[in-house]
């Protein structure tokens, strides 16, 4: 479905991505790796938010490198931001309706909000501004992508700020979504529980692919106990 060919990104003389080659299909992929390794940058390049300095992006074999964010969104790429954007005067219902599209029913939107653990009645008319808590913003960010029901959905650290009790539920939401859209899901995460439900795991470090393979192959490497294993930072993050 999505092919990245030799993607490089340079900003202020830093090589943030160094010629990455990747192929994403109809599966559930989790990207993990140390802070600053280029995970968000990579997914922003997929969504068209930043342009790679080199390389091409193909969607079903067609070159989409020069397409805008809007055009890629219309093709079927969705993106949930690591840091949700605040708006003045726009309400949860406004953004959800825009995400769900013209033909969406109000009830469907309410259902999606309850899937991410928000009671629609309490939230639908709230402003998407600083008055919502971090976790609430994050849930709405996820809900918007769910509402779009596109073939390829990207979530940048969806679990950040979500409380422990709701976490399990969130993993169900992703599993259910994958069945529903019959497409690809790409999640950036540092959480073992998310890694555990992945089909494939991409481990990114210093802007390069360390490994990208089936979960069973990559997970043991990541959880390797040897102090100099590739992922000591990751283990710290996961509180091991």
């Amino acid at each position, binding site marked *: 479905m999505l092919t990245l060919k030799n993607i490089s990104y340079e900003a202020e003389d830093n090589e943030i991505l160094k010629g990455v080659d990747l192929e994403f299909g109809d599966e559930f992929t989790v990207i993990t790796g140390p802070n600053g390794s280029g995970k968000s940058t990579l997914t922003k390049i997929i969504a068209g938010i930043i342009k790679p300095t080199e390389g091409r992006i193909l969607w079903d074999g067609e070159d989409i490198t020069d397409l805008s964010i*809007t055009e890629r*969104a219309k093709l079927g*790429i969705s993106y949930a931001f690591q840091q949700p954007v605040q*708006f003045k005067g726009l309400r949860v219902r406004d953004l959800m309706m*825009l995400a769900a*599209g013209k033909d969406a029913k109000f009830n469907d939107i309410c259902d999606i909000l309850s899937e991410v653990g928000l009671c629609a009645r309490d939230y639908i008319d709230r402003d998407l501004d600083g008055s919502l808590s971090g976790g609430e913003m994050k849930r709405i960010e996820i809900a918007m992508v769910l509402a779009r029901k596109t073939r390829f959905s990207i979530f940048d650290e969806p679990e950040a700020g979500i409380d422990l009790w709701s976490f399990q539920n969130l993993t169900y939401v992703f599993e259910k979504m994958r069945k529903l859209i019959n497409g690809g899901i790409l999640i950036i995460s540092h959480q073992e529980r998310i890694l555990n439900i992945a089909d494939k795991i991409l481990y990114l470090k210093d802007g390069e692919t360390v490994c990208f393979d089936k979960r069973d192959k990559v997970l043991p490497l990541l959880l390797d106990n040897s102090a100099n294993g590739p992922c000591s930072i990751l283990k710290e993050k996961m509180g091991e």
Partner: protein
Amino acid sequence: MILDSIQKNLLHEVAELDALPAGAYNLRSNGKGVARQTTANIDIVPKDDKPGIDIIIKPGTKKESVHIPVIISESGLKDLVYNDFYIGEDSDVTIIAGCGISNCGGGDSVHDGIHTFHVGKNAKIRYVEKHYGEGEGRGKRLMNPTTIIYLEEGSYMKMETTQIAGIDDTLRETKAEIAADAYLEIKEKILTTGNQQARSNFVTNLNGDGCSCNIVNRAVAKENSYQFFDSTMNGNADCSGHSECDSIIMDHAKVAASPNLTATCEDASLIHEAAIGKIAGEQLIKLMTLGLTEEEAEEQVIAGFLR
């Protein structure tokens, strides 16, 4: 009274009225009062020394409304009107004003409305005002609303004023004298485009202990338009005043904000916040990832901002 389709549309835009409203009203069209209705508690009396009306609301009047729309469809008409509101003690009413100008001709059409509110003790009013212009003619559509507010002890006034489209030039003057324990809230929303100019001057005097006010201005200036927001707040007692001016600037527009705070009492607490900036890029990006074009995204951000 027969209204043509232009007049009907103006009435819809400024007062959301498709028929004459329930309750008290006074409809002014092309410089003349054309329809009026009073109620047992609300009297409307034309002035005999100058154009305009006195709206007299009996003490204790609750849950009633007054509509006083003004529409101008004659090109080149210069309309000046004085409306005085006497709001009786302990009443609770809604007043809906608004002015619509449709100018398809070559002459400038002007409406200058001077509204004075005498809000009695412990009375509560909501005042909604909408200004709208349309028409392809060369003639300008000009509006200069002046609002003078006297809030007596314990009274409460909430004013919402909106000017979203079609007024070429506007000078808005709003002055308020606020007595003890009274509260004033003003929400002003202005969108200017083309070569339009809008100036808004507020002077608020917080005179009595325990009084407060909140003045919020939301402005969007597009293309070559110009907006100037000037707010003077004087804290003369144990009071609290907050004013805020938040503007989105686009294209080649120019926006100026000039807040002035003066306290003459040790217990006065006054705050002004002013921000001018373009639409945050990340807001547009977020909306574009939902499939909106950049232009559609801008429209959404502005519509929300001016809601």
